[in-house]
């Protein structure tokens, strides 16, 4: 397989025909019912949630919504959630836990929205709470990064038992643009930043952050929606079944350990300088 550079992938996932969750959901799930609102403040268009069927099994779907055009993007705020989006996701996750439904998170966001209202409504608290609560949810959680996985805004749907990356998806602590801006005070050096920040599916496998890479059709997901949806569905059917078979306490232990072991440091002895 011809591996693309991180920057080529960035261009690919920004392709105007890159499929979004609005394309994927009807392909992958049956009888999908969208459920709105966080029951606290409002309904955030950047994250849609709902119940549907994956094969025979009812599942809860939480998905970040990139618009396919300006109209859709206005509604979904270019997939940048406000706190109520994360709170809706948590509400539906708790509901899934109650009814013993596995949770499928579809990640595709440049990041949590940065704005006055988002701050006033506790963007930090909303994300933090999801991290803590998802770690303890007594039902399987599978996350897939579809395109862009931007920082804490992505991680808020990324505390899971298994993380998959679409082949060309990127997942990063900061957008390459933001990274370039901080590094060189020059956002236009995105291409170089992309390489340095190490955010491709292969990088994430190496760091133990992702467990699976879902292959995309030649030239990228937009070239064959049917095929890429099939690949995603196949992965989900297998993993959901596998995780559902597992003893829930063991599953939770493994989920904790998955994140617990990430970190690169050294201690004493070898550093006496």
């Amino acid at each position, binding site marked *: 397989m011809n591996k693309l550079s991180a920057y080529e992938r960035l261009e690919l996932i920004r392709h105007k025909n890159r499929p979004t969750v609005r394309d994927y959901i009807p392909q992958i799930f049956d009888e999908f019912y969208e459920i709105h609102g966080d029951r606290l403040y409002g309904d955030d268009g950047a994250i849609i949630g709902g119940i549907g069927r994956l094969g025979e099994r009812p599942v809860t779907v939480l998905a970040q919504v990139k618009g396919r055009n300006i109209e859709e993007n206005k509604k979904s705020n270019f997939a940048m959630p406000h706190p109520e989006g994360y709170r809706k996701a948590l509400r539906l996750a708790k509901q899934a836990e109650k009814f013993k439904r596995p949770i499928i998170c579809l990640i595709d966001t440049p990041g949590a929205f940065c704005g006055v209202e988002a*701050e006033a409504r506790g963007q*930090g608290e909303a994300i933090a709470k999801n991290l803590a609560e998802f770690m303890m949810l007594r039902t399987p959680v599978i996350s897939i990064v579809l395109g862009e996985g931007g920082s804490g805004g992505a991680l808020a749907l990324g505390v899971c038992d298994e993380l998959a990356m679409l082949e060309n998806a990127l997942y990063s602590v900061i957008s390459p643009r933001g990274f370039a801006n901080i590094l060189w005070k020059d956002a236009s050096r995105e291409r170089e930043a992309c390489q340095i920040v190490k955010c491709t599916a292969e990088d994430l496998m190496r760091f133990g952050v992702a467990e699976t890479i879902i292959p995309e059709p030649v030239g990228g997901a937009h070239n064959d929606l049917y095929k890429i949806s099939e690949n995603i569905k196949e992965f989900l059917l297998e993993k959901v079944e596998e995780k559902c078979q597992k003893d829930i306490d063991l599953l939770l232990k493994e989920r904790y350990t998955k994140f617990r072991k990430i970190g690169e440091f050294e201690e004493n002895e070898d550093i006496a300088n």
Partner: protein
Amino acid sequence: MLEDLFKVVKTRFNGTEGKSDEGVRKKDIPDDLLFKCPRCLQTIFSEEYAALNKVCPSCNYHGRLTVNERLRLTIDKGSFVEYDSDMISKNPIDFPGYAEKQAKLRCETNLKDAVVTGEATIRGIKVVIGVMDSRYMMASMGSVVGEKLTRAIETATEKKLPVIFFCASGGARMQEGIISLMQMAKTSGAIAKHSEQGLLYISVLTDPTTGGVTASFASLGDIIIAEPKVVIGFAGRRVIEGTIKQRLPDYFQTAEFMLEKGFVDMIVERKRMRSTLAHLLKLHGYTDENRYNN
């Protein structure tokens, strides 16, 4: 009287960047002789500022403390036993200049990374404590910060001890790429497990608490305390200003703003911090015999 002195100092030294003749004069005076408050912009002699435990006498801004200063003001003298004092980070994404930068900071600050953790007593009550130090890469969270905090929380869970974290951070440490992001999940997960055991976690937000730290353990306290006038937020102020194309009021993203919006439980002045913590610990059943009454 004192105020007059500040005025003189202010007119002489305020806002000069070494270009005017005042700037020339400023050169004779070491930089660290004066402290300019980032909130009210009043200038004060550093010695005076230190004697006030780094609280601005004009506006009550609670300035940044080093780990040692914080411990001295918070815990019982001689009670601190440090955890993981030798842990240092690697360079997981081979970030250019990261190792050098850290070596330099280690020399300058005598820290190994941006957090110090350990066990101590506060008025006889045993706690696990973590203190972040903004001098070290703005106390950003990478592998070492994440690991040390997580270990501290896990130890507290094991020993059934309360956790007190003095948070300060610019956010995730981007020099460690995605690994730094994962520290948010790691620390938050450890807090969730600590909480599950019915144990108390008090998070104290100090200047500045932002980004990925706000979006993880800092916001998960059973009790969230903030010091007066400190910056607390998720997104960078300039990022938001850039988006909305206007300047935000000074009040935005302060401790007082966060209290008003419902994300901080109480604002506590430094001089009352130790007694407040001790009282809260006692109210949750922790005693100076280190017995947890459930």
